[in-house]
């Protein structure tokens, strides 16, 4: 047993709030780390030096005047570049949004600012969040801080790498099929997908609206929980946001798992690398030692999650991305008619993976194929939700791997879409069900690459989810520090 990892975000906020350190000094230190490391890692597409310094000065002025600077006072945060920031370019790593500066802030961005957090930059992603490696970016790939020859995972690879390398203690990403949890696992940090509807999606550029959810990256479960508390809660600007107050979970984070029952899901372990399966087994033992009843269980329907996801998500994407038509913002390639302008603009503006998914989704929704593909995938989604419901009659939380492998080499899967999609096999079921899930770093694969263990809970089960995650975290072997990191 090693001591729990530090919670740099909570510690920095405490120091800034008590006046022990200025927000300006905290922000300067992190900007310096970005300047030193990001040439190699390319986690950021935009670094906001001036804006971050200005904001830090405001927070210091607030604190000096006796005003509460907020629970995340002075804490640097990196934002995935599909979250709208007023007046600051928001690219989705796509050429089609060239030059676009959103006229409004995403709700999560406004809440971060109100909590005293300082946005230091916008992070790289697979174009429109479509991918599992951050290689599908119009700006080029992000590299894994543990091994720059490998991918950081995706699609929120920039946010995961930024936190892993210590360029920011916190980051936000979006998780449609694993886009927070998979890169967090591959980069050795904590990443959480909250219950659908607990965090406002207003200002998150839509990919697949029934699956998309914003969530936190951090180096500890406590820091991730603190960030979730700040961004969560009802927002009238998102009609799918639940009418619930902001979550309050930090206080109960150390309540342990004594008396809980944990199911280790066969289908979320079988087929993963032996080292990954071994780490999941060790995490299960740790939960048992902490007083939980741990049993294996089968949820066979989750095996159908991946094919269902790769019909439903592209179908929704093909509809959501119809808005990029060259008319109102972003790129336009001029042509004689509107239709020709649309086709030429979209051909020039979208990268290969986005085109592939729009094609796939359009096909799955087209006349003659709708029932066989889209309709059948929607029914499969119901089967998966029902299977989870049966499992949660017996168990409080479920446990499995986050990813089948550790970080793979850059370029290894770019020519085989299905091989790339398989990276998401353990994460998509939670999105289809709308449930929360979190990945916790738990040792490595024997070659120094981090392994993530995934905890899953039923809808609105964040309390029990994060308590269990904290127990797993406390039992995790000492982490191997990333090769590229802030010192």
């Amino acid at each position, binding site marked *: 047993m090693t001591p729990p990892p530090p919670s740099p975000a909570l510690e920095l906020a405490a120091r800034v709030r008590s006046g022990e350190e200025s927000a300006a000094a905290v922000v300067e230190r992190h900007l310096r780390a970005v300047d030193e490391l990001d040439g190699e890692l390319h986690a950021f597409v935009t670094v906001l030096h001036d804006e971050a310094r200005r904001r830090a000065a405001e927070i210091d002025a607030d604190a000096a005047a006796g005003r509460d600077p907020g629970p995340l006072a002075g804490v640097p945060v990196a934002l995935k570049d599909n979250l709208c920031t007023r007046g600051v370019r928001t690219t989705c790593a796509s050429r089609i949004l060239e*030059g*676009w*500066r959103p*006229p*409004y802030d995403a709700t999560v961005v406004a809440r971060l600012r109100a909590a005293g957090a300082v946005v230091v930059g916008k992070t790289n992603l697979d174009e429109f969040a479509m991918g599992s490696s951050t290689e599908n970016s119009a700006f080029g790939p992000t590299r894994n801080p543990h091994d720059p020859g490998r991918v950081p995972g995706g699609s929120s690879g920039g946010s995961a790498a930024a936190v892993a390398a210590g360029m920011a203690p916190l980051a936000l990403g979006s998780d449609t099929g694993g886009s927070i949890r998979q890169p967090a696992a591959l980069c050795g940090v904590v990443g959480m997908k909250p219950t*659908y*509807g607990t965090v406002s999606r207003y200002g998150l550029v839509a990919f697949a609206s*029934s699956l998309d959810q914003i969530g936190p990256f951090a180096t500890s479960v406590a820091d991730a929980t603190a960030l979730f508390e700040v961004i969560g809660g009802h927002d*009238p600007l998102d*009609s*799918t946001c639940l009418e619930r107050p902001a979550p309050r979970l930090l206080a109960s984070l150390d309540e342990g798992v004594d008396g809980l029952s944990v199911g280790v899901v066969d289908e979320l372990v079988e087929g993963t690398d032996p080292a990954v399966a071994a780490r999941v087994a060790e995490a299960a033992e740790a939960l048992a030692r902490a007083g939980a009843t741990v049993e294996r269980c089968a949820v066979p329907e989750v095996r*159908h999650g*991946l*094919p269902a996801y*790769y*019909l439903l998500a592209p179908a929704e994407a*093909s509809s959501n991305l119809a808005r990029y*038509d060259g*008319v*109102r*913002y*972003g*790129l336009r390639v*001029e*042509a*004689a*008619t*509107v*239709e*020709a*302008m649309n*086709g*030429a603009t*979209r*051909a020039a503006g*979208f990268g290969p993976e986005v*085109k592939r998914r*729009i*094609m*796939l989704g*359009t*096909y799955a929704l*087209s006349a003659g194929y709708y029932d*066989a*593909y889209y309709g*059948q*995938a*929607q*029914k*499969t*989604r*119901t*089967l998966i*939700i029902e299977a989870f419901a049966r499992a949660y009659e017996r168990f409080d939380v479920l446990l499995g791997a986050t990813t089948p492998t550790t970080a793979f080499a850059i370029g290894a899967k770019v020519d085989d*879409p*299905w091989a790339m999609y398989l990276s998401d096999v353990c994460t998509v079921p939670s999105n*289809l*069900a*709308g449930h929360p899930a979190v990945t916790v770093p738990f040792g490595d694969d024997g070659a120094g690459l981090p392994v993530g263990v995934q905890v899953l809970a039923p*809808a609105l089960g964040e309390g029990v989810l994060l308590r269990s995650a904290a127990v797993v975290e406390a039992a995790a072997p000492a982490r191997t520090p990333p090769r590229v990191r802030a010192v």
Partner: protein
Amino acid sequence: MSGDAPRLTRQDAAYVARLARIDLTEDELELYAAQLASVLAHAAELGALDTEGVEPTAHPLPLCNVLRADEERPCLDRHEVLAQAPAVEDHRFRVPRILGEAP
């Protein structure tokens, strides 16, 4: 029908590209026809599932008709929004002609 890869011709791909309003090159049509067929082959396993009487799920939350109070509130600034457009005329988005007639 598991493993039964659907045949997808270059013409099918061209039809889908037209529906999606993306001008694809001959090479792209060739590539996507093959790649779509390979992804759809994996999707075909869903066809073997017994979904008789199963309701489709479109959305994880049972929400319908979320309404807000009918109160006036500020909206986005028109000039700020139009400043993002590739082409503007008389405070409107300017586009090429839509109908077939000569300009």
